[in-house]
């Protein structure tokens, strides 16, 4: 048996207080923003309405961004096709809902939510399958090359959007939500759309599930390592291709889920709807820090809240609130709030 090598004790100095607080800072941002909002808005009922609906909006954005956190954040693939998956998800989901008229048209919460779930599952299956094809045909040759990713995935985006036109026709499709999800609940002078409450539940569940999967399995590690040095990951015995495909499919399926939720919120769907959300979704992933589910979650809540507060206090500034938020966060933390993966 070996004798131990000489041991060394590197020297450690005390960390300063600001250093230590700095780590927890992103977690505090949401509460801080809420309090600031209260102070500047004044009216309690308005503040309550804005806060709750802002948080719910954040959740919906998070659902759309969650897939991108996997694909862009972890796998380092800039996938503009994500926008098309959102649209496809919406079209499939809404078609399913229209077919489930008998569940959505009756005032039963159970049936209504079941219909939404069924639509979500249908959408996720289709976009997941689409993602699989996308990965095989479009993305595979361009891993590691951002520019080419942008181009091929924009190409894919255009193709899918056009195919939506071919399949569903060029007209926008209007729809109404299931009976029990229409209208708002009012309390304390504040009105909250019922649908937003459902979005909050979906968003939270998704957040918890993603966290668990990434914390409890090696998948996250394999992907991050694979992006840096795929050869080495394979030399350790992992079938990297399979993992990449799996994660990409998951990301696409989440885009589909996001599409259904967003379509139901908007009550109108167009082939370009996903594309329109892409910049916002990218902003959320970037300010959150690449690869971080927590970061994207906080980022999405910040975006949702800030949009509402700013639009109430100074509508003109709402035009640039997201961009300003991103720039500010990047000035403060050039890698985003809680990066798991280093940006290149």
């Amino acid at each position, binding site marked *: 048996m070996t*004798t131990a*090598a000489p041991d060394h004790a590197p020297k450690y100095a005390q960390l300063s207080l600001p250093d230590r607080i700095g780590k927890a800072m992103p977690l505090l941002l949401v509460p801080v923003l809420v309090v600031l909002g209260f102070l500047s808005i004044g009216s309690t009922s308005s503040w309550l309405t804005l806060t709750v609906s802002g948080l719910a909006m954040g959740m919906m954005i998070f659902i759309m961004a969650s897939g991108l956190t996997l694909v862009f954040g972890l796998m380092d693939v800039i996938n503009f096709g994500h926008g098309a998956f959102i649209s496809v998800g919406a079209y499939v989901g809404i078609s399913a809902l229209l077919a489930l008229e008998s569940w959505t048209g009756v005032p039963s919460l159970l049936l209504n939510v079941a219909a939404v779930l069924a639509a979500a599952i249908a959408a996720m299956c289709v976009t997941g399958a689409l993602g699989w094809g996308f990965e095989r045909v479009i993305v595979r040759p361009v891993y590691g090359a951002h520019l080419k990713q942008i181009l091929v995935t924009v190409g894919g985006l255009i193709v899918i959007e056009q195919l939506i036109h071919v399949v569903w026709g060029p007209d926008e499709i209007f729809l109404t939500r299931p009976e029990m999800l229409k209208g708002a609940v009012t309390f304390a002078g504040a009105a909250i759309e019922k649908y937003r409450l459902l979005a909050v539940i979906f968003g939270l569940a998704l957040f918890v599930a993603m966290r668990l999967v990434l914390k409890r399995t090696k998948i996250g590690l394999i992907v991050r390592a694979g992006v840096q040095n795929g050869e080495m990951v394979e030399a350790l015995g992992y079938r990297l291709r399979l993992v990449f495909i799996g994660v990409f499919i998951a990301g696409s399926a989440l885009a589909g889920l996001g599409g259904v939720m967003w379509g139901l919120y908007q009550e109108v769907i167009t082939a370009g709807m996903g594309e329109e959300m892409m910049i916002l979704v990218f902003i959320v992933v970037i300010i959150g820090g690449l690869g971080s589910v927590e970061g994207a979650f906080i980022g999405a809540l910040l975006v949702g809240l800030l949009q509402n507060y700013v639009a109430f206090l100074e509508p003109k500034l709402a035009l640039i609130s997201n961009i300003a938020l991103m720039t500010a966060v990047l000035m403060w933390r050039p890698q985003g709030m809680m990066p798991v993966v280093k940006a290149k």
Partner: protein
Amino acid sequence: MSDPILELSAVHTDIAQYHILQGVDLTVPRGGVTMLLGRNGVGKTTTLRTIIGHWQARSGSLRFNGTDITSMPTPARARAGIGFVPEDMGIFSDLTVEENMILAAASGPLDPARMQWIFRAFPPLKTFWRAEAGNLSGGQKQMLSIARAMAEERKLYLIDEPTKGLAPAIISTMASALRDLKAKGASILLVEQNFAVAKALGDTAAVMDDGRIVWAGEMAELASDAALQDRLMGLSMEAH
């Protein structure tokens, strides 16, 4: 003698348009340490990469542990029992030391007893367990790279220049760790420029030149024959 753990016959490998390996015949006996020696640029690294599957052999065959692995993909070769320490160390620099090790144990959680053994050979890994691997010093990275291959039991280890950048104290603990591996029944194919280490560790040796094996035999024979060394590898090993 039992059948060799690894057998390459007439392996040719191309990198882009260059013909790098030009008919490599190499055997690694079971349970021994085989040194792969040679000047810079003769194809040692290419040989190891062909064995693990990062380069695909154009012709010839590779047999590992009795099965033909010539057309197996890399992960399958790894799972068949080949561990690899690449020349550039292949560290996942954005991951912590711990995460690098967790990944290295592909088939399950880390084995604490094995970790104790690894920590004894490479104490800095314990000290910097939670540090980002990319920030380690050059030598520490080298340690991590070797430790990763040792995280799980393998039948054959391919190790490319492990001692470069290591301080003498660590070289000696690493050498004994490799001997522990051998004692546990593993076989090792080791590329090394440090002739002292080669001499101390090797059971057999193969010398490459120009994409071919030009000499193969017992390490002791090579070590004791300065003229042979001079002929095979240029300057005499003991020169400096």
